[in-house]
């Protein structure tokens, strides 16, 4: 095992055998947690948000849908997102992207990446898929203009009529397939 060398020795990767065992157990307890989160999400009736595993038998890749909050410029619009969980979730945040084209100051128009603090350095294991979806839903109506990934959208935010026009030009309604 780790022989505890001084700083003069080069750092080495951890020994192989316990690591292999660990990652399997890790996947096991993460699966349990994801199963529980799925149940919670299905039992709760949070309007306008939903998410499910993409394929049967793989709890680590989900797709979700977010409806724009009422009384915002996004009201009535729906967006698809993808959620990929790392093997050490919930200690590390999942990776979330918009799969639908989403015209928004904090969404990268090139790849759907999202700038939201709780998905980066402010991530905490107290959060869940549900809290993420709710945060994303409110982000739609309340963008953070100070750190835009889409500068055009950020620039138009204070002129709602022009913003709405651009928003609708970029919007592609979801087809009726799952979820």
């Amino acid at each position: 095992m780790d022989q505890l060398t001084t700083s003069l020795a080069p750092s080495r990767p951890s020994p192989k055998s316990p690591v292999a065992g660990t990652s399997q157990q890790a996947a096991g307890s993460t699966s349990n947690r994801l199963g529980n989160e799925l149940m919670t999400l299905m039992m709760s009736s949070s309007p306008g948000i939903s998410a499910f595993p993409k394929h049967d038998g793989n709890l680590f890749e989900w797709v979700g849908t977010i409806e724009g909050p009422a009384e915002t410029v996004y009201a009535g619009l729906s967006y698809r997102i993808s959620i990929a969980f790392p093997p050490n979730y919930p200690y590390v945040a999942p990776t979330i992207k918009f799969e639908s084209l989403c015209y928004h100051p904090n969404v990268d128009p090139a790849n759907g990446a999202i700038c939201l603090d709780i998905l980066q350095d402010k991530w905490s294991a107290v959060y869940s898929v549900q809290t993420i979806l709710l945060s994303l839903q409110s982000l739609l109506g309340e963008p953070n203009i100070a750190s835009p990934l889409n500068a055009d959208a950020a620039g138009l935010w204070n002129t709602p009529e022009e913003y709405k026009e651009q928003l609708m030009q970029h919007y592609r309604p979801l087809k009726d397939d799952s979820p």
Partner: protein
Amino acid sequence: MLNSINDTTSQRALMASELTPLSVLREDFDRESVFQKQLDFLQKNGFSSVRRVRGDGDCFYRSFAFSFLEQLIDEPDREFAVMRRLSLLDGFEPSLKSAGFDKDTYQDFKEEFEECIKAFAQPDHTGRVMNLQSLVQVFQDEMKSHAIVFYLRLITSMKIYEDQENMAPFLMNPETFDPMSPTSFRRRQIEVMGVEADEPQIIALTNAMKVNVEVAYVDGHTTSDIVKFVRIHNAQDENSRSIMLLYRPGHYDVLNRGKP
């Protein structure tokens, strides 16, 4: 200085299998430096070694948790000691709720900690109870180790919430020293893995867990080569042993007396 510590610890296992004698640890520092003299002072005063913990920002919580559990090994009445610790955790339930944590959000983490405590009294499927070696293995298992650390983070956050009137003046951003509200301090400085603990977190956690903690500050700052010990006393029992930690700038490890 900070970098050299981080470089040597960030790639390690979460918890070292073997103890590092202070005589080996001193090789990390410049000859004749205050650090070396401080480590020599510790050796002269009966301390022999540290159990190294990875320098990933969770080292205070991980060292604390390990030492808290390691003490169970020497308990003359293990059953009783285990029961006492389990009831301590159950006693947190109302406070966790008041602090805004749903049982759903922390149950997994709590269970992992409870399982670990119970294993000191209840034999596993092979008929063995927890010993030092199996405890180290638990702490080397990323998911178990992180679950225990995160549970202690939630207890810390809960305690800051409970004592926020007294704590508020001491809560600040560690980089800018700007004051932080209890709510944002809890969210940003406690409930996020990898964010280091400062004094408010240490006081809150040891207070909640009702244990005595002594931190030996090998910080290179003193001019007299002695090591300053910061003692936080919370245990009601006079004979309660302290959790001993060694602090070097930016890092905590478990400090041990006796033979390495």
